[in-house]
């Protein structure tokens, strides 16, 4: 039987069906799926551990679980005590839980600390063909390696800690073909590709599915760029994103801390090359095609990641955006009001107050390097406060080794410690009410980066250019 890549991984990990006597169980009921890798962080795990403790249960596979601190930690000087008492409690709770249940923790001072979705791949914890979960929706990032990786709630974190399994109704396979050739591949990034996809299929377009991204362009992308695409699959409502592993994927694994070594690595390579791809005649529930020839740098104007336009566009009129859908029209009116934007305004006329380069979407060395090319030899606008937050300590160290920190600092950007930071503003890195931010993160929801704050999602080079000029610019003119 012809199978999609997702179906192969699913079948490989299925332990049981709710009722194995039931016909067509895949369509009707839930299956019990084995989980190979579990990532833990401070915000969505405390209640799970507490419940284990109350019921006298253990962590089944601490050896398949790693933890880090990323969501609420400060990105300023790490030697200072944590000022926020509730954050401090959460941090200390994770330390205590990891110690008690025998889980490896990459703590604030660890050279491997960082955003869960940055450190998983970096450590070689993320492997092709595996199932990976984390109490965080952007777990879809790891799909870039050909893993079935998805976000879960705290109750399922507890379920996986206890049983190393999860109950799930099998998602459907959704193929997104990416065709054509980018006119200026340095200026049109993988962020612009994924924003274009979400713009096309909407924030619930991927609901109930796993999206497999395919096409010549995808095969030409680096792992960093592929991660940006899979990361935002959840913004299209998909359960996960997936890219079939190839030589780029396999080369990335060599020498990583937890990746298999020697013969084990050879076996993984062979398995991946021979098996981890969708069969030629596999059935996809839905197929969409995105042509990239005409893609311009993308900028979000509204309060969800489908409200996006080209940098050369003007702010749309609600009727134009809604295309006859009354609910969408009302939403657009609400979004424009929240964002304090007038229809017809050119995107390049929008002035910004803040710039955030970071998050699990765009905080890896390559993202920072690309942004630095725009920043090099220039100064940020005096009206803008700009921050660079590396995704991990490893990213920070590597970036410093090649001098990226100096480029940003000389241009007037802040160079900070690793963490989720202003992507969700759980620590003190937040927008003030009314502030407008060009952000490389993944969500432009109301209040996401701070109550009353206004977020525009862009690529790292678009954010960097906006920081220099104080308003959006078409970065194609610079590169």
């Amino acid at each position, binding site marked *: 039987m012809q199978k999609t890549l997702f179906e192969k991984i699913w079948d490989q990990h299925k*332990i*049981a069906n*709710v009722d194995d006597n039931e016909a067509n169980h895949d369509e*009707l*009921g*839930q299956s*019990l799926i*084995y989980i*190979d890798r579990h990532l833990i962080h401070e*915000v*969505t795990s*405390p*209640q799970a551990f507490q419940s284990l403790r109350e019921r006298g*249960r253990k962590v*089944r596979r*601490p*050896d*398949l679980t790693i933890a880090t601190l990323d969501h609420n930690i400060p990105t300023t000087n790490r030697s200072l005590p944590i000022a926020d008492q*509730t954050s401090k409690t*959460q941090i200390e*709770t994770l330390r205590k839980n990891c110690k008690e249940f025998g889980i*490896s923790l990459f703590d604030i001072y660890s050279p491997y600390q960082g955003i869960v979705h940055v450190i998983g791949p970096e450590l070689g914890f993320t*492997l092709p063909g595996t199932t990976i979960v984390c*109490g*965080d*929706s952007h777990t879809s990032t790891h799909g870039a390696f050909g893993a079935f990786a*998805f*976000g879960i*709630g705290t*109750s*399922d974190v*507890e*379920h996986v800690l*206890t*049983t*190393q*399994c999860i109950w*799930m109704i099998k998602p459907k396979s959704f193929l997104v073909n990416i065709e054509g050739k980018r006119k200026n591949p340095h200026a049109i990034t993988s962020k612009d590709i994924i924003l274009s996809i979400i713009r096309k299929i909407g924030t*619930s377009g991927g*609901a109930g599915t796993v999206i497999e991204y395919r096409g010549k362009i995808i095969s030409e992308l680096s792992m960093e760029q592929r991660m940006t695409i899979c990361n935002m699959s959840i913004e299209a*409502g998909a*359960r996960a994103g997936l890219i079939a592993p190839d030589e780029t994927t396999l080369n990335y694994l060599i020498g990583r801390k937890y990746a298999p070594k020697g013969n*084990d690595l050879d*076996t993984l390579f062979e398995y991946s090359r021979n098996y981890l791809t969708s069969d030629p005649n596999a059935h996809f529930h839905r197929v969409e095609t995105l042509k990239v020839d005409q893609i311009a740098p993308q900028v979000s104007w509204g309060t*969800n990641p489908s409200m996006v336009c080209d940098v050369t566009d003007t702010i749309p009129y609600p009727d134009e955006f809604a295309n006859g859908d009354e*609910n*969408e029209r*009302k*939403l657009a009116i*609400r979004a424009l009001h929240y964002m304090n934007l007038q229809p017809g305004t050119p995107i390049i006329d929008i002035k910004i107050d803040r710039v955030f380069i970071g998050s699990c979407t765009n905080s890896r060395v390559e993202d920072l390097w690309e942004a630095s090319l725009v920043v090099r030899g220039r100064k940020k606008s005096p009206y803008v406060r700009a921050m660079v937050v590396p995704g991990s300590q490893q990213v920070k160290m590597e970036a410093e080794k090649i001098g990226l920190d100096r480029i940003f600092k000389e241009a007037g950007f802040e160079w900070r410690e690793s963490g989720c930071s202003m992507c*969700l*503003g*759980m620590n003190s890195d937040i927008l003030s009410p009314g502030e407008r931010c060009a952000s490389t993160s993944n*969500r432009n*929801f*109301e*209040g*996401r980066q701070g*109550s*009353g704050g206004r977020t525009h999602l862009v690529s790292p080079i678009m954010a960097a250019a906006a920081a220099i000029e104080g308003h959006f610019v078409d970065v194609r003119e610079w590169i």
Partner: protein
Amino acid sequence: MNAFKTIKSRITPLDIINVDTDQIIPKQFLRLIQKSGYSDYLFYDWRFNQNGDPKKDFVLNNPLYSNRMILVTKENFGCGSSREHAVWALLDYGFRVILAPSFADIFYTNCFKTGLLPVVLEKEEIHHLFNIGINDYVEVSLISQTVSIDNRVMNFQIDPMKKKMLLEGIDEIAYTLQMEKRITDYEKKNENTCTRINII
């Protein structure tokens, strides 16, 4: 977990599509380490001004809509973050049922774990519920999988295992632990596969 059978209540309408979990519970309230105490933070930025005063035009601040257990809303409710705090906040506030034409996947899954019932109805049925009288009662029965108002009965689909868990308030983990042997067998069979090497 709270078991769920049947509930009869008036409804609270929330006429917005794509309500994301950042709106249901903003991030500054995710720093707690317990599962309850989130009632005051539900829809915080929609409910309160910067200075903490209630916004008069938001439906939860309208005294006519107090003490209601059913929230009726629109497409893609609960999109965005996986935070289960969104479910805890809705439950703490007093909601037991959410009626909508569609839900985001992770939120939908999370609801069942703590005893909040998400019900998918047809667009037209949701439209009908938005137009009923402010004091009309709606009955939601998980047993018969129906939403009833006056003479109209609307049916809904639900996964049989999810239904059983919620009806009986079964601890899902205890249920899975009964399958211990199958999990162990699976681990034994696969312990030497390249992707499942004991890593630490």
